[in-house]
């Protein structure tokens, strides 16, 4: 088990495995996103209150989910890198950050577009929106902090600490709608008892989330390969590979 793990964490193996996985992630995500878009825009029934406006859900909720998922992946990778001094883990955290930031931006932007017709405002400083905005700043801060060091090892360690401290914000985002009175609606899918939206509306949502998840896998694979090459500039395996 440990030898397997060490093999996987070795840069040449990771580089090769990611290169093999990426096309599968890419094509599968494209197929799922296209199916979910058609299902969400055409096939799913209109909402009885929001009409066709609710269809923004199919891009808003998956991007909001990905914004938090990516942050947890980034923080766990940074933590692993910090504790066990695995360079590949730091590289993974660095690869995730810009992708997570882009999904956070998308969640905020689509939420804002959805808020206008439903709440009558583009923006309100309620707990859910504010904590999600803080998430965007955490991603941007993480990337800026990395960029401010010339020494990659110091950049890894300093940014890892920021990533770990910031992870507190993720449960705050999730529970913000329960802890505070917010304009944002409470969770309707991730409820323990029973989701409060119709199954016909739910299926395309799950397909879209799966598609986004695979897309994230594709983008991380590509970026991580780039990170590995930049960090392993003097390694022998690289000289043989190209």
């Amino acid at each position, binding site marked *: 088990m440990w030898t397997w793990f060490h093999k996987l964490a070795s840069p040449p193996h990771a580089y090769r495995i990611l290169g093999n996985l990426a096309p599968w992630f890419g094509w599968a995500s494209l197929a799922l996103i296209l199916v979910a878009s058609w299902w969400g*825009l055409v096939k799913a029934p209109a909402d009885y209150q929001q*009409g066709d406006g609710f269809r923004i859900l199919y891009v808003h909720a998956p991007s909001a989910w990905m914004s938090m998922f990516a942050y947890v992946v980034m923080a766990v990778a940074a933590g692993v890198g910090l504790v066990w001094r695995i360079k590949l883990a730091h590289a993974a955290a660095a690869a995730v950050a810009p992708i997570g930031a882009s999904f956070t931006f*998308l969640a905020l*932007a689509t939420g804002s577009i959805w808020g206008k017709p439903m709440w009558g405002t583009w923006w309100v400083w309620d707990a859910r929106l504010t904590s999600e905005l803080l998430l965007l700043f955490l991603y941007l801060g993480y990337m800026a902090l990395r960029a401010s060091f010339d020494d990659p090892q110091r950049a890894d360690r300093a940014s890892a600490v920021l990533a770990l401290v910031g992870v507190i914000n993720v449960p705050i985002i999730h529970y913000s709608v329960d802890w505070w009175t917010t304009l944002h609606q409470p969770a309707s899918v991730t409820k323990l008892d029973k989701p409060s939206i119709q199954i016909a509306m739910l299926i395309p949502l799950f397909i879209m989330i799966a598609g986004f998840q695979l897309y994230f896998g594709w983008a991380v694979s590509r970026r991580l*390969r*780039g*990170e590995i090459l930049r960090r392993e500039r003097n390694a022998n395996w690289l000289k043989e590979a190209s």
Partner: protein
Amino acid sequence: MDLQSFFNMGGYAQYVWPAYGLTALVLLWNWWAARRSETEAQTAAQRRNELARERST
């Protein structure tokens, strides 16, 4: 469903389509940026190798 009512989105066209368009843009940006990050590192590594080979001969 006819095409016109599809594009009209029950009167929410001005919100639904920008939301989907923006999503497409962000996904395309990720595609472009991730590819670029990988290929740039690959060309840089290749160039270093060629230089090292030239120096060793």
